[in-house]
């Protein structure tokens, strides 16, 4: 049963995903965005119009984590000591400078945008190709994380309905579009032909995700252990943190 059921499930998910992409192109997403996630006040839960899709995707992501990500990350953590994995995390972080810089710029945050450039130059050289974050302790230059979802938020685009993405997990209509925009800023995607850049970017995403997962083995377990309703806990965690970031961004 399992394989065919999973296949039907994936086909359903595909259909819904294609539907969403189509809708967003014909501008219906605008209406969906206006509807918004909604406040907790009235119904006490977030409005979740995509819940049937989201819950399926959430379940698939959990399986993906249980049978692939977690075992791989655990094996990886057995081979590489924690401090080495932290340096690898720094490396991936350093590589992701372009969307951070661009989105600071888009929001007219000139000083943080400049800081991102300085951090990249310092860490890529003195920090040994980005494996060491020396810009923070030596020069007091802290990272200013921004993404295109937050940029859209900065200019008044609401978060839109909650959306669970395959592999990436919790997101929203707006933030998923933002993620695509940030991905398009990756130099690989405009300097290399797509049949090289797509697998290369997927490989980089997988490698950094495994590294990240290996550094958060306990954290993931804790959430699972303490939550009464895991979907609701993850959904709320995502929305609360994004709202917090947005509130910091409006001034």
């Amino acid at each position, binding site marked *: 049963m399992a394989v065919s059921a999973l296949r039907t499930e994936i086909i359903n998910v595909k259909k819904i995903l294609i539907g969403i992409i189509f809708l967003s192109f014909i501008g219906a997403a605008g209406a969906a965005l206006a509807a918004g996630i909604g406040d907790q006040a009235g119904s*006490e839960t977030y409005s979740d119009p995509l819940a049937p899709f989201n819950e399926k995707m959430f379940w698939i992501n959990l399986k993906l984590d249980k049978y692939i990500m977690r075992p791989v990350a655990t094996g990886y953590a057995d081979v590489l000591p924690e401090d080495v994995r932290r340096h690898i995390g720094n490396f991936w972080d350093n590589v992701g400078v372009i969307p951070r810089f661009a989105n600071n710029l888009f929001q007219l945050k000139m000083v943080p945008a400049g800081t991102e450039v300085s951090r990249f130059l310092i860490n890529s050289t003195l920090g040994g190709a980005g494996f060491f974050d020396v810009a923070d302790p030596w020069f007091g230059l802290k990272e200013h994380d921004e993404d295109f979802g937050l940029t859209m938020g900065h200019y008044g685009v609401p978060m839109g309905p909650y959306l669970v993405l395959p592999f990436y997990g919790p997101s929203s209509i707006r933030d998923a579009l933002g993620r695509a925009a940030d991905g398009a800023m990756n130099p690989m995607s405009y300097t290399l032909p797509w049949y090289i850049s797509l697998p290369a970017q997927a490989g980089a995403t997988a490698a950094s995700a495994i590294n990240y997962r290996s*550094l958060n083995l306990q954290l993931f377990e804790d959430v699972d252990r*303490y939550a*009464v309703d895991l979907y*609701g*806990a993850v959904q709320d965690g995502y929305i*609360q943190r994004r709202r917090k970031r947005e509130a910091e961004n409006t001034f």
Partner: protein
Amino acid sequence: MAAVKETVRQVLAIVTDPSYKSATSARRQKLREVIAPRFDFSDMAKSSLGYHWRTLTPAQRADFVRAFTALLEASYMGKIESYKGQKISYLRETQDGSYAQVYTSIQSGGGEPVSVNYRLKQSDGTWKVYDVAIDQISLVGNYRNQFNRVINDKGYAQLLAAIKQKEQSIDSGR
């Protein structure tokens, strides 16, 4: 908010006290005595239910507060007991009338520090914690979304059963 600092100090003194090493239930009792006066569990339980609280009878409310408190205890006592010398820093505090917030961060290993902010309310001259934000996520708000989803899908009775079951599974797992 010296009260928060003092409570954390007492908690750390208990968990690092070697004489409790083989007396976990005595230690838990001691922890409860220190923590209970500082946390307003019934207020936390009430706001975690949101408007559903109003639909409950006084007896149901008391039962829910007990179940919720037991869940929090089971969840966080285990976490507190696994304390391994993580560094706790007091960053700042803000006060607005009878509401206050104490910002702390916990540094474990070489990772990023995790922010833990205590939200307090003053009533009858004592400051009590009514919510904790861990890594920017309000604990009570997070439970509220979970609880209301379960109530909307399956009803209140199922939620109460799920909370009790979760608490037992955490307790038996330690």
